[in-house]
């Protein structure tokens, strides 16, 4: 530090400067941004409905409208001409005055019945034109990366698969980080002999936990199941309610414990929180993760959200271990001791002072975790479990290719998509490790 200009020195700036030196990583970062853009704009990049269409004098924006929309088209004399049902209209056969198609004029799950049975990217592709004749596909409507057995466009599938992959990485690692950082911070900061509370409070917390689980999850299990079967949103709301009940029960019992004034029970006792967390990590680590995930996904309902949640709740151990190790180191540093001697509460010390300084190595583990979450999801889809059949993912496309080795495009392109995404995340993780933690530089 002494050699550097200490006045304007910020770790973030330093790390960013270090990161920028790695040109490959910088390219990867830009690639990641473009993947995100691709994922966000997926419905407008690959869509069978045109972006803009001038149809019989009506200006339509079909790709931006909801799928269930219907438009009534009237003739100039005011009589009803036809009704456009957005989800079933074959837009390609309509006679537009002017039309702007999406770059890939196919949706991922619509089957093109003229190009079934694995049409190769370079092979002959058929197309039904406006007059109802079957012709060679014009270059705009060619399946540029080929189709699968039931005529779904591969390029559209890949573009929409980007969404799923990025979301899997983000959501599952979001869940894993929340659990991992929270538990790791508690374990690392308090250890086995720092968290003291009156014995009665300790016992009452456990009782509160029991009642919280009973009322929050045991008693509300039908409400939770109904919520999740309705929609993922209502399920999440029910889940939040359950967690609220859990927290309330614990708080209530901790409060009740103050009312019992028996000296013997008011003695301070240590809460071995580190033991709890560390043994929990070991327990989860001793089970092969992929096996566990496959088992759970086989039992529960098939849904992409559930896959993300499962990957998240089985993937927090690495993050927790890093956080724990980092906090073990940090808690003996001067600034934490200063915070403690100033009388700050444990909560404030951990979350405002200790944790922000511990997050750099954790961030690296999260970045690697995203890569492995994407890998696991595509592995599951590749095996044909977990994600419902109607959702097109990179893994499920690759699986189709495995079943028909002649369709090389179904192997190369999705495989490359998975590979490139994972490489990007790994590169970024590696480079940020070098930037954030020079000791680990390889």
């Amino acid at each position: 530090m002494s050699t550097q200009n200490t006045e304007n020195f910020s770790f973030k700036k330093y790390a960013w400067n270090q990161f920028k030196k790695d040109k490959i990583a910088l390219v990867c970062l830009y690639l990641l941004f473009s993947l995100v853009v691709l994922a966000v704009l997926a419905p407008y990049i690959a869509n069978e409905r045109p972006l803009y269409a001038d149809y019989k004098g009506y200006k339509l924006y079909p790709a931006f409208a909801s799928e269930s929309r219907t438009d009534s088209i009237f003739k100039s004399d005011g009589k009803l001409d036809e009704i456009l049902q957005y989800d079933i209209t074959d837009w390609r056969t309509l006679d537009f005055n002017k039309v702007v198609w999406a770059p890939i004029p196919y949706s991922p799950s619509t089957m093109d019945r003229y190009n079934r049975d694995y049409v190769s990217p370079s092979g002959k592709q058929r197309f039904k034109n406006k007059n109802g004749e079957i012709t060679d596909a014009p270059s705009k409507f060619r399946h540029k990366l080929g189709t699968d057995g039931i005529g779904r466009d591969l390029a559209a599938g890949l573009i929409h698969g980007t969404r799923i992959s990025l979301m899997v990485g983000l959501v599952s690692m979001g869940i894993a980080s929340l659990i991992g950082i929270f538990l790791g911070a508690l374990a690392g900061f308090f250890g086995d002999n720092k968290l003291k509370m009156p014995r009665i409070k300790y016992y009452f917390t456990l009782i509160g936990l029991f009642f919280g689980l009973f009322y929050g999850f045991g008693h509300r299990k039908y409400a939770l199941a109904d919520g999740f079967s309705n929609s993922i949103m209502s399920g999440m709301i029910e889940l939040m309610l359950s967690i609220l009940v859990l927290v309330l029960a614990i708080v209530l019992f901790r409060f009740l414990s103050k009312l019992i004034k028996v000296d013997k029970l008011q003695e301070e006792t240590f809460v071995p929180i580190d033991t709890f967390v560390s043994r929990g990590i070991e327990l989860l680590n001793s089970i092969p993760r992929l096996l566990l995930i496959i088992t759970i996904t086989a039992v529960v309902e098939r849904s992409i959200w559930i896959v993300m949640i499962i990957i998240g709740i089985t993937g927090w151990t690495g993050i927790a271990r890093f956080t724990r190790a980092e906090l073990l180191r940090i808690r003996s540093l001067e600034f934490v001791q200063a915070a403690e001697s100033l009388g700050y509460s444990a909560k404030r010390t951990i979350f405002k002072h200790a944790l922000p300084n511990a997050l750099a190595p954790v961030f690296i583990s999260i970045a690697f975790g995203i890569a492995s979450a994407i890998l696991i999801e595509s592995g599951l889809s590749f095996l044909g479990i977990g994600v419902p059949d109607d959702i097109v993912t990179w893994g499920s496309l690759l699986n189709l290719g495995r079943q028909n080795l002649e369709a090389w495009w179904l192997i190369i392109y999705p495989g490359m998509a998975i590979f490139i995404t994972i490489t990007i995340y790994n590169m970024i993780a590696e480079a940020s490790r070098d930037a954030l933690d020079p000791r680990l530089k390889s």
Partner: protein
Amino acid sequence: MHPKKIKAELRKKLGLDLPIFYFSVSNLSTSDTLYRIQDKYHKATLEHLTHKSGNWSKVSDYYKELLSLQKVHMKLNSKDIFESQTELELNTINEAVNQVGFEINNLLETSEGELIDLSFSKIDDKLSNYSFLSSLNSSFENVKKYKNEINISEDKWRTYVPKINWYGSKNQYHLWLFGNGKDRKGLLRGDFGISYIDSQPISTKIWQKIGISFSLSLISILLAYLISIPIGIYSAHKKDSAVDKGFSLVLFILYSMPSFFVGTLLLLQFANPDNLAWFPVSGIQDPTLFDPEWSFWTKIKHRMPFLILPIITYTYGSFAFLSRIMRVGMIDVVSQDYIRTARAKGLGEKKVILKHALRNSLLPIITVFAAIFPMAIGGSIIIEVIFSIPGMGVEVYNSILNYDYPMIITVFTISGFLTMLGYLVADILYAVVDPRISYK
């Protein structure tokens, strides 16, 4: 025999008629004997109804009455009715009887108030239209009465009071762990139970399959070590040279390649008549040629072409990973003082690297060694599925898809145990490699 009886006997044999654990937590309204009910849909219905009303005894009455209604219904015989009735056609009678039976089944499997009412009204309709169903009348009235009692029951508060049921040692977990002294010996004495699918002992099934998975993972790990240690040493030795940079990039790319992609690519390229049909596509032997009487070497020779692609797929991932660790470890060691001392006292570069540095740089990659044991039992599911290798991976995968819980639990138990064993082996190896580490 009646299928229900067969099922009941099977449940008894497998111990499924017992409660799951020593105790269970439920609320005051539920029955502690619910686990005895065979049909899982009925069980779910009863549980939910009890949860709604808070009164188990009334739900139980309702359920019993429904069962007796079903029994009476089963005694109905369309032919007999047809013979005693002249004005109706056999088809009409059949349809009415079947529909009532269908609704009764629905009632047994639903706890939704609206659906129950719907079924009630449909049965009512049939009963009032067809006089030959009159034998069901009294029982059905009872069912409706009980349902009504459930609806007006005001015992909802009971569901808010937790209750702990104690079952003692007669439970599935105890049976699984300790056996029952008769046909089941229990896990502690090496009995993993029997498979739900084919009633074979789990241990037999595992022994049949584990050989191939274990050999594959062992061969691939050894290969990976054999290749990656020299590569790691070389690139650390020539750090920042063009070769090192090239190696690093290639290893990084290999490391990011998903194994299922690599496996499929290999199949596409080398086991595909369109490209190169060098290797067979799936399996580990040709069933038309293979002869179990063959000597060990002949078998290996025969299986070799089948195993090359899987071994490559198995190996490359760990190889890339190990080389990277090895390189980092080596660089770390080479920059230390004692290596400089060794060089300073005039030792040859070869001796410095191979004798002084290598041993210490082995530490990090030992950790990885611990992983092969659990890998053998779990198999690499994806690789075995791609190449259709009849090993543990495919076995476990199939048992998961078929809900063969004894198999799944056994695999989890053993791999948990083996993970611990792997940690232990790694710890011992640490001590062997580094004399400073001791576990006294």
